[in-house]
């Protein structure tokens, strides 16, 4: 049986590499996904994220990140109930004061979390307003999209018993 999975691409297309999450979910091969998988785009605002992922069994959020890794690095965090996301986890430093880390904390406080949350981050170089996404991020989008597809496949396939 398929799980209800939502894939959320977060970003702002007018701020350079901050578009990474949006570009990634657009690069996901939607035709190959089961019907129980929904792909949405988001600006990453905390309350909106809660609305987009609440009720899902699994949410996969794709966002631009700054961790100090080389631009274009793709990383994955499986957010368990007791792990905290890095406080600076947000695209572009945020078009918003409340980002994914706040959404997770708020979602836990009010009981609006999916059963499982996976965050896929793409390291950004520049998020200057008006600039197009840079080469490192554009190149990383394909790998990030494949990671999303694998993640979805793992959710909707029957898990091995035991």
């Amino acid at each position, binding site marked *: 049986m398929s799980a209800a999975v939502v894939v959320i691409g977060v970003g*702002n*297309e*007018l701020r350079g590499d901050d578009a990474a999450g949006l570009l990634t979910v657009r690069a996901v091969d939607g035709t190959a996904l089961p019907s129980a998988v929904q792909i949405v*785009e*988001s*600006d990453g*605002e*905390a*309350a*909106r994220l*809660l*609305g987009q992922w609440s009720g899902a069994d699994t949410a996969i959020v794709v966002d631009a990140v700054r961790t100090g890794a080389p631009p274009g690095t793709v990383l994955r965090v499986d957010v368990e109930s007791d792990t905290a996301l890095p406080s600076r986890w947000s695209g572009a*430093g*945020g*078009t*918003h*004061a*409340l980002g994914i880390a*706040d959404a997770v*904390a*708020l979602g836990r*406080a*009010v*009981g*609006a979390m999916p059963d499982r949350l996976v965050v896929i981050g793409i390291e950004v170089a520049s998020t200057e*307003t*008006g600039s197009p996404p840079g080469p490192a991020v554009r190149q990383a989008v394909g790998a990030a999209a494949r990671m999303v597809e694998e993640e979805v496949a793992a959710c909707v396939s029957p898990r091995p018993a035991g």
Partner: protein
Amino acid sequence: MTHRTPASRTLKVDALPRVEGEGAMYVEIRDGAVHDVQLRIYEPPRFFEGFLRGRSYTEPPDITARICGICPVAYQMSACLAIEDACGVTVDERITALRRLIYCGEWIESHALHVYLLHAPDFLGYESAVAMAEDHRAEVQRGLALKKAGNDLIEVVGGRAIHPVNVRVGGFYRAPTRGELAPIAEQLRGARDAALETVAWVAGFEFPDFDHAHELVALREPGGRYPMLGGRLVSDRGLDIAPSEFLVHVVEEHVERSTALHAHLIERGNYLVGPLARYSLNFDRLAPLARDAARSAGLGEVCRNPFRSIIVRAVEIVQACDEALSIIAEYAPPNPPAIPAPARAGTGADWSEAPRGTLWHRYQLDTSGTILDAKIVPPTSQNQATIEHDLFHLVEHLIDADDDELRRRCEQAIRNYDPCISCATHFLDMRVERS
């Protein structure tokens, strides 16, 4: 980082939380007296105005919607109205009703976000909405449900909750059917009840005595409606102007510390746009339900205490839910969903009431509809000088408070105005220097 000596201290705050986007605040105290207060705003320097030049006159609704994730509809509406003014066309009542409907969704979602997640924690003594939610789970859930009702309304009319794609110059690409609006009406009835509960909840907060004397400026619409789309810009001191006259009365000046421009009324000084001004100049236009809610919350017909803006926002959520329900009850899809708006050479200007206040757009087109010039004045730039003014007096009043208290109260005072720093700015830092 905090340094303190008896006569001089420096307080630096790296971020001002719970304000849309980020910016910076600087406070300088010399010999025990406030010397300077600056709100520094880093605006993507008029990027959008430059970006629009050379583009087609049909593009601003989609492009300017991306200036802000919280008030895209406001940008779309002001852009459409201003371009329609340039084209010399006026949309019909049905299209206007549908525009007001989607705008109600934006007021609901933006105000619910501010009241519950950004402003209420100040009054209840929490560092953040997350901390508040631990103790006030039911209230935060109510706020999130309210915000979702606003988002869902925008999505039904606009095709998408953020950066709606269904809005165009002349109207809409497609009008929703009555059947498509029925489920949202059900949701809005619940939201209206939640909004009334919100008014009662925030009315119970404690408010400092702090009335300001700023000139209150807001739209006044013909036809007796609470201001939202177009009309004249009026004030409590006799201002009464058309959109084309805006820059005759308002001057925007560059301030060295900010990439945003400070707006002033010529020979009158700083002024205030936003919920307090809108409410105070249009109390008679509120729906009876919203007016009763305001009275029962202890608000007079004019409100000059910026801390009480949280009640006014809650009243405006009631107003928006109520008006949305009225529009849906009488709804007949506009047919066609958009009127023709052929390009012509000329300049058009108009405005609308964004959740945070009046948003003015002006476009100059050539005969083929190419944009020669674009000008956008967002509410936060108009309020910036007023916010600084309030901060100056607040710091004077709190000069003996310790740094943490001073910082907390300044942050709260800034949040009173719900500055959408992503419209007008970028990152927010706060620094207090005492010497």
